[in-house]
């Protein structure tokens, strides 16, 4: 070991030496021939000095090379850390770990580069789903984002019960048919019932049906897929999907749910309120199904523009 | 001479095959005891015993049959004793007798019982010869009496057992249902016998079971009806005959 250390030291010294001589070559070249009038002696002297410097470089280099060749054996595995030691395993056929490691490293690098590219593209064409500017809060977002879809069950329950309590004619019940993911059954007045599928506290899917339509299948499980047979509620399901995207707040999922439920709650008067724009109840035999996301203004889908 | 030899050979063959059968069933039984002793039940042990004993019986029959020449008349004479291993013999005896030597020959070829057993037998013989005929008679009667007693006890026990058994069977015919209960239940379901609404509130002192049951078709006292009706059907009250509005 000590021997090695010495060699390393001398190799370092040789490197320094090499560096010095190379610098000298370049300084010499930079200074150039002092006068242009051209005394032959001066010029030839310059060339000779340059030659000397270059020979010094060559000799230093060869010395360093010699030293480094003696070191080579030892330095082989070191720079790659523990994975380098894996590569020393002689029985590669049996444990192809090292090659796999290299492969996965390659892939993860690729993934990273693709992801960063995609990220750059997305920041350029952002969907503006959130009201928060994407740039400034990136650090905060990175912290909150992973938690909102893995919220513990009791927290979800808490949020749901507070929302449930805050509206008179909106009742929410929580189901967990598949363990973790919560499925909310929402009943709005005597107008409609909806199934809201949550992932953590994020809304993933909403389906709206009539108040008197079945939310359950014949075998008693929640029916998550069949659309309503009524045109009004099919339309409402579409609107609810749009609202779900609009109220998508990954860093403040609770507010997202609350605002979505407020919006959904405004449908208690689905059949009893006329359109604010045209003053009529029906348009295409469908009542005003649109509620503005911010003002909750009532109008027909066609009267929006 | 040739006939005799043939008969001997045949009977030996028969004996060997019987003995082989017997041996097989004994090994099977031993295997059973060793490997299935946890799950083994009494009937299957009895089965094995029965097989073995029947095989012994057939072996005895073979030995006693008239076709078998009297084996007693044949002499087996060991000519050479060899201390070395005899492969053929070992194979023949399934590894039990590796060599025909001085150690095993006296055991396998003996014709008399062991000396101490012989001695005991002799003792018993002398004892028996010393007894007087009266004593023998007495002992025989004693023995018979004891045997009879045991038979009686066993018989009694079996009778009792049978009685118990038939008692259980008999009970299921008699005691799992009662015709009176059947009748009571059927009349209750069909006519409501015993189910009529009774004035429990008015007569709290009376035991419900002592109350006279109302006749099925008979009219219940009007006081009862009017007391009960409002509590069940408040709508019946306005519909009194006197209040009928005139139809136009």
């Amino acid at each position, binding site marked *: 070991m000590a021997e090695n250390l010495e060699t390393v030291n001398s190799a370092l010294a040789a490197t320094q030496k090499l560096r010095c001589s190379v610098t000298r070559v370049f300084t010499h070249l930079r200074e150039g021939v002092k006068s242009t009038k051209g005394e032959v002696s001066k010029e030839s002297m310059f060339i000779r000095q340059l030659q000397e410097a270059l020979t010094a470089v060559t000799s230093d280099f060869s010395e360093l090379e010699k030293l480094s060749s003696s070191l080579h054996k030892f330095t082989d595995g070191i720079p790659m850390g523990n994975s380098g030691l894996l590569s020393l395993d002689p029985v590669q056929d049996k444990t192809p770990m090292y090659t796999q490691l290299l492969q996965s490293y390659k892939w993860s690098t690729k993934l990273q580069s693709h992801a960063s590219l995609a990220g750059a593209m997305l920041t350029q064409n952002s969907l503006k789903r959130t009201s928060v500017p994407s740039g400034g809060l990136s650090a905060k977002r990175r912290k909150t984002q992973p938690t909102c879809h893995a919220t513990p069950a009791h927290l979800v329950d808490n949020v749901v019960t507070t929302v449930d309590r805050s509206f008179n004619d909106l009742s929410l019940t929580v189901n967990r048919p598949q363990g973790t993911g919560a499925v909310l059954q929402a009943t709005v007045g*005597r*107008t409609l019932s909806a199934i809201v599928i949550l992932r953590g506290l994020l809304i993933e899917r909403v389906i709206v049906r*009539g*108040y*008197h339509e079945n939310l359950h299948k014949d075998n008693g499980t929640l029916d998550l897929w069949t659309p309503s047979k*009524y*045109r*009004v*509620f099919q339309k409402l399901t579409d609107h609810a999907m749009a609202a779900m995207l609009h109220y998508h707040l990954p860093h403040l999922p609770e507010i997202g749910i609350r605002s979505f439920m407020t919006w959904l709650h405004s449908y208690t*008067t*689905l*059949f*009893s309120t*006329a359109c604010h724009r045209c003053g*009529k*109840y*029906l348009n*295409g*035999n*469908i*009542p005003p199904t649109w509620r503005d996301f911010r003002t909750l203004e009532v109008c027909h889908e066609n009267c929006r523009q | 001479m040739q006939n005799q030899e043939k008969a001997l050979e045949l009977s030996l063959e028969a004996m060997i095959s019987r003995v082989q059968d017997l041996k097989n069933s004994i090994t099977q039984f031993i295997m059973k005891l060793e490997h299935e002793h946890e799950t083994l039940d009494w009937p299957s042990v009895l089965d094995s015993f029965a097989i073995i004993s029947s095989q012994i019986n057939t072996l005895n029959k073979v030995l006693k049959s008239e076709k078998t020449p009297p084996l007693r008349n044949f002499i087996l004479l060991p000519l050479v004793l060899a201390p070395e291993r005899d492969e053929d013999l070992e194979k023949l005896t399934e590894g039990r007798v590796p060599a025909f030597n001085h150690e095993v020959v006296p055991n396998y070829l003996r014709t008399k019982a062991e000396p101490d057993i012989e001695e005991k037998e002799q003792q018993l013989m002398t004892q028996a010869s010393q007894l007087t005929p009266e004593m023998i008679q007495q002992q025989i009667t004693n023995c018979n009496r004891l045997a009879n007693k045991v038979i009686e006890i066993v018989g009694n026990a079996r009778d009792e057992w049978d009685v118990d058994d038939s008692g259980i069977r008999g009970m299921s015919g008699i005691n799992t249902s009662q015709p009176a209960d059947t009748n009571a239940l059927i009349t209750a379901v069909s006519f409501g016998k015993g189910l009529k609404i009774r004035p429990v509130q008015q007569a709290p002192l009376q035991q419900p079971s002592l109350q006279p049951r109302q006749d099925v078709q008979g009219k219940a006292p009007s006081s009862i009806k009017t007391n009960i009706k409002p509590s069940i059907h408040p*709508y019946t009250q*306005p*519909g*009194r*005959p006197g*209040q*009928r*509005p005139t*139809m*136009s």
Partner: protein
Amino acid sequence: MGVTCVCQWPVPDNKSVQQVVDMIAKRVELLGSNKSGTFCVDCETYQSSPMMMLQKTVHIIHNSEQPMTSYAVMEGPGSAANCLVADTMFDQIMQRLKGFYMPKKTPKVESKGQHYELGDFNVKIGTVTLGGHAKGILLEIEYTPCVVVLDCWNLLTEFMQGFMASHTPSLPSYLANRQDANYTPMDTIMQYLDHFNTFTGRKVVQQPAR
């Protein structure tokens, strides 16, 4: 099943019932609706036998929309109309009560006709016949997604004005009493019964419904 309004369409003297029905059907079809079959609502009336102390009437009504169901409506002096929803075996039970309730001599009333669908609305145009003679026209307008009369009456009115114009009815008195309750098929039956009673010329004692 949703909120339903049953109303009568007057037949002018110079036109036959069939002509008026055709006229309405044309209007409804012009709105863009699809024919979706026929329907029939019939009503049979049983009268209690004279030896019973109270004169009572039981109407047994069938609606082809609920083919397995019989509605039995009890009307009698001094009691509110009470409606029992049962399966069709109830008809047989009524026959077993011959000694107490007899079918009325007057012929059966029924309303029969075409069924139209227009989005979430159902429109049924029925010709009322009394023993085979056309007596008038009953329209049934249903808004299927809603179950509360109070919520959707205005909406329903707007829809009806679309093709009924001046004949648009006001809120039927039966529904007025149950504006806030959940609508049931029984409510449709009660409306039909009210109209049938006017067609047969029976005295209608309007009772507050339960």
